């Protein structure tokens, strides 16, 4: 995982928010992990009106001008990647 281009850090949590693996900028970053777990819980309770009613959303991205956090939940584990934003994938809100 750590060899991907543009990747600044990686964090793998279990469903309670305990750190299983981490590297780079996010090395053992329990603070960021905790906030993201909280966000996922808030988002999970409501389906936020997204169409797919089964599990609401597949991916949560938190975008800053030059980097972003990408969060996925799979197999009861929370994957968080911090990446540099390449201009092509920039999101305009």
């Amino acid at each position, binding site marked *: 995982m750590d060899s991907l281009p543009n990747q600044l850090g990686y964090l793998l949590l279990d469903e309670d928010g305990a750190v299983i693996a981490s590297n780079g900028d996010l090395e053992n970053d329990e603070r*960021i992990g905790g*906030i*993201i777990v*909280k*966000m996922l819980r*808030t*988002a999970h*309770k*409501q389906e*936020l*009106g*997204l*169409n*797919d009613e089964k599990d*609401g*959303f*597949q*991916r*949560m*991205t*938190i*975008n*800053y*001008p030059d980097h*972003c*956090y990408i969060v996925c939940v799979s197999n009861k584990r929370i994957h968080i990647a911090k990446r540099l934003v390449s201009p092509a994938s920039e*999101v305009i*809100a």
Partner: protein
Amino acid sequence: MDKEVQKCVEELMTSPGVVGVLCADRQGMCLTSQGVANSNYSGSLTSLSHLATTLEPGKGDPVILFENHESQCLIHQNMGMTLAVYKTNT
């Protein structure tokens, strides 16, 4: 004042792919909601944007994006106000 906001929201609703818009204040009370956006969720949306600003304090307000196969939800906070935009993938 609210007329201008309403106009802005209606304008946003006519943008391609946009199916819902919601504005909420600092307390999570819904100011306006249009399309698929449900005013019940204004609290959660506000709380999400507040949490996101605590990730990297002082780095400005990030944009949160939720997505699945067919739709997206963008949430952005500005000066305490939260704006959520629902879009379908085109």
